[in-house]
C-alpha cells in the first residue's frame, strides 16, 4: 500500500496499539530548563528512573542571559531553574550542554547542528517548536511537561494518530535573497490560519521546497506550530544527508543508514493525504505581521487592514483584529512601510542560524543603525556565533551599531533580561507576535532577517526587494 512519509515513520515506531492510540518509541528526547523541572520532580516522587539517558540531551536556552557568561546570573529565579537542570542531569545521567559549553544554544538549533536530529527518527521536546527538526525528515513533536515525564520514564509517547496535510509550494521566487523561507511560511499561515493545521502533520513538498537549503527548511518547519500543526516534515534528500555527515553525534554507520533512508524516506506516489493546500512561490512578497497572531500578516507593500475587511464577515475575527490593532497601536490604512520601529531582534530558533546572519549582514554592511533604534543579534548557538565570528560577521554588525550577544532564546520570549519595554515596537525574526511575548506591552512585527536588518538601518520597514542583496 502507498504510504506518506509520515505514515512510514509513524508505523515503524509503534510499540503497541491500544484503544485507537499508539505507543510510539522516541528515538531522541531533547530537554531544556523551563519545561523539565516538574517532570524530574515527578520521577523522584514516584521513584522512577530515566529509561534511556543515552537518548536524552539537555541544554539551557530559554532564560539564560545573553550577556557576558563569565559573570554570575543576576536573576535568582532563572538561576534556580538553571541549577535545577544541572542537578537533574547529573542525578539521572543525562548529557547536558550547559551555559559554558561550546555546544550550548537554542535546543532546536543545536539538535541538527550536533547530528542528534536524524531522518526517519522520532524526536520529542517540551517545546512547541520541536517541529523544526522535521526539516530533516524526522517526526518531531512538541509536548507538555507531563509527557516529558512520561518519555523520561518510558522512552515512549502515547498518541492518537494525527491526520496528514500536504502543503505544496511550487515555482521560483523572483528574488530569493529578498523573499525568504520566512516569507514563504508566513504566507502559508496567513492563508490557512493559526488553526489551519490543527490535528495534522504537515508535509511540505514541491520544487520550491527542494530548492531550499537545510537552514531555510528549518525555518519553514519551525513555524508549523504557528499553523496549529502537530509537526511539519520535509522528505530528506542529498542536501539533508550532506548536512548531517560528520557531526558530533552522527552515528558511525551513517553511510549505511543513508542508503536505507534514500530508499524509504519519501511519500510513495499514489499515497493519499487527508488534506492539501497549494501555494505558488512566484508572487510571494516580503511579509510583515501587523497583529497579535502570526496569521495577521501582510505583504510589505500592503497596509494595516480595516478589521471589517480582515474579518470577512466573521464577527469573532473582526473583534480579534480590532483588539489586535488597539494593542499594536496601529491605524487601519497605514502603509506597512510607514510603521516606525524602536527595536530590532535578529534571533530565535526560526532565524538565528549562520545563513540568516549572513543574509542580514549584507544589508547592514557599511551602514549604521538608525539613531532611535536599538538593535541586537543573538546567534542561535555558540557554534553559530563562532562560525559567524570567523567570517567577520560580528564586526559588520557591531560596526553598524548592533549588539552582538551570546546564544539563547533571548527576546523571542523575554524570559531573560532581553525584553521590550511597554509600548516599544520591534521588528523581530522570531515566530510569535502574541501580546506581551517579547515583554509586557511590547509590540512585535514578525519579519525575515533581511527585513529586520533593513528596518534597523532605516528605522521603519522597507521593501528589501529594492535593495541589492547579491
Amino acid at each position, binding site marked *: 500500500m502507498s504510504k506518506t512519509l509520515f505514515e512510514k515513520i509513524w508505523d515503524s515506531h509503534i510499540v503497541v496499539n491500544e484503544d485507537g492510540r499508539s505507543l510510539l518509541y522516541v528515538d531522541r528526547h531533547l530537554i531544556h530548563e523551563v519545561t523539565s523541572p516538574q517532570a524530574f520532580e515527578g520521577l523522584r516522587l514516584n521513584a522512577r528512573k530515566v529509561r534511556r539517558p543515552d537518548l536524552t540531551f539537555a541544554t539551557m536556552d530559554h532564560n539564560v542571559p545573553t550577556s557576558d557568561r563569565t559573570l554570575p546570573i543576576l536573576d535568582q529565579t532563572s538561576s534556580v531553574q538553571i541549577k535545577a537542570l544541572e542537578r537533574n542531569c547529573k542525578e539521572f545521567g543525562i548529557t547536558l550542554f550547559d551555559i559554558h559549553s561550546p555546544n550550548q544554544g537554542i535546543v532546536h538549533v543545536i539538535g541538527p547542528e550536533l547530528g542528534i536530529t536524524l531522518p526517519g527518527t522520532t524526536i520529542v521536546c517540551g517545546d512547541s517548536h520541536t517541529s523544526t527538526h522535521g526539516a530533516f525528515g524526522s517526526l518531531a513533536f512538541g509536548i507538555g511537561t507531563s509527557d516529558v515525564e512520561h518519555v523520561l520514564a518510558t522512552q515512549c509517547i502515547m498518541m492518537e494518530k494525527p491526520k496528514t496535510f500536504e502543503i505544496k509550494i511550487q515555482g521560483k521566487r523572483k528574488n530569493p535573497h529578498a523573499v525568504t523561507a520566512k516569507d514563504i511560511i508566513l504566507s502559508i499561515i496567513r492563508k490557512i490560519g*493559526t488553526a489551519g493545521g490543527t490535528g495534522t502533520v504537515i508535509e511540505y513538498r514541491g520544487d520550491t521546497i527542494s530548492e531550499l537549503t537545510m537552514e531555510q527548511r528549518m525555518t519553514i518547519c519551525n513555524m508549523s506550530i504557528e499553523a496549529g500543526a502537530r509537526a511539519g516534515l520535509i522528505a530528506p534528500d542529498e542536501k539533508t544527508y550532506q548536512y548531517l555527515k560528520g557531526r558530533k553525534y552522527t552515528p558511525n554507520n551513517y553511510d549505511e543508514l543513508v542508503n536505507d533512508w534514500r530508499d524509504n524516506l519519501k511519500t510513495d506516489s499514489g499515497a493519499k493525504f487527508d488534506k492539501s493546500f497549494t501555494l505558488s512561490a512566484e508572487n510571494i512578497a516580503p511579509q510583515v505581521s501587523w497583529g497579535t497572531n502570526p496569521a495577521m500578516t501582510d505583504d510589505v507593500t500592503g497596509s494595516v487592514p480595516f478589521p471589517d475587511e480582515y474579518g470577512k464577515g466573521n464577527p469573532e475575527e473582526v473583534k480579534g483584529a480590532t483588539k489586535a490593532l488597539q494593542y499594536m497601536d496601529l491605524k487601519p490604512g497605514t502603509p506597512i512601510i510607514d510603521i516606525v520601529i524602536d527595536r530590532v531582534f535578529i534571533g530565535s530558533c526560526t532565524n538565528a542560524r549562520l545563513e540568516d546572519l549572513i543574509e542580514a549582514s549584507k544589508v547592514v554592511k557599511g551602514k549604521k543603525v538608525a539613531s532611535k533604534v536599538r538593535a541586537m543579534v543573538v546567534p542561535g548557538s555558540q557554534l553559530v556565533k563562532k562560525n559567524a565570528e570567523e567570517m567577520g560577521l560580528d564586526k559588520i554588525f557591531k560596526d553598524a551599531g548592533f549588539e552582538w550577544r551570546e546564544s539563547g532564546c533571548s527576546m523571542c520570549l523575554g524570559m531573560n533580561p532581553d525584553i521590550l519595554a511597554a509600548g516599544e515596537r520591534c521588528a523581530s525574526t522570531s515566530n510569535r507576535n502574541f501580546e506581551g511575548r517579547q515583554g509586557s506591552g511590547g509590540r512585535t512585527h514578525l519579519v525575515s532577517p533581511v527585513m529586520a536588518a533593513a528596518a534597523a538601518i532605516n528605522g521603519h520597514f522597507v521593501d528589501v526587494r529594492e535593495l541589492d542583496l547579491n
Partner: protein
Amino acid sequence: MEPFKKIKSIVTPLDKVNVDTDQIVPKQFLKLIQRTGFGQYLFYDWRYEQGGIPKTDFILNDPEYKNSKILLARDNFGCGSSREHAVWALDDFGFKAIISTSFADIFYNNCFKNGILPIRVSDEILQKLFSTKSEIEVDLEDQTIMVNNTPVSFDIEPHWKKILLEGLDDIAMTLQHASQITKYERSHKI
C-alpha cells in the same frame, strides 16, 4: 490524579478567539520549578494593571464568577507555546472543565494529564452557553452537559475518558508494556 467528578457551576465566558498560552500564563512566571501555585498568575497581563492593580473590566475579576469551575472559551483556545504551566494555572485557579469549539493540540493533551476536561461543542451550542447565566452541569460519565434542563451530549476519546474518570497514572499504564518496549528497542537500531 484525582478522579474526575460531576461539576455543577456557572460558566465564566471568555469572549476571545485564538487565546494563546502566553496570555494564559505570561513568561515571567515560567521560572518556578514546582507545579503548584500558578493560579495567581492566570491571565496575568489581562487581569492586572502594571503594579498589580486588578482590571475591573476583566471577567476573572468579576466577583459574580468567583466560584465558577467552568471556563467558556472560543476557537483555537490554548494555541502557541506547549507550556503546561497554562493548565496548572487554570487548575489552580479552580477551573475543572473548559468548553470551546476547538482547542490547540498540545494544550488539549495537557488538560487530560492534569485532570481537566476540555469539551468540544458546536458553534451553536457554544453560542447558547455564552448567553446562559444559570448553572450548568457537566457529567463525564454520561458525556452530557445539562443546560437549562436540556442535555447536550459531547464526544470524548474513550482513552481520555477512562483516565479522567479513574484518575489513572498514565506512566504506570505504559510501564505495563515494559516487555514490549524492550523488545522494540532490541530490534530498532537508531
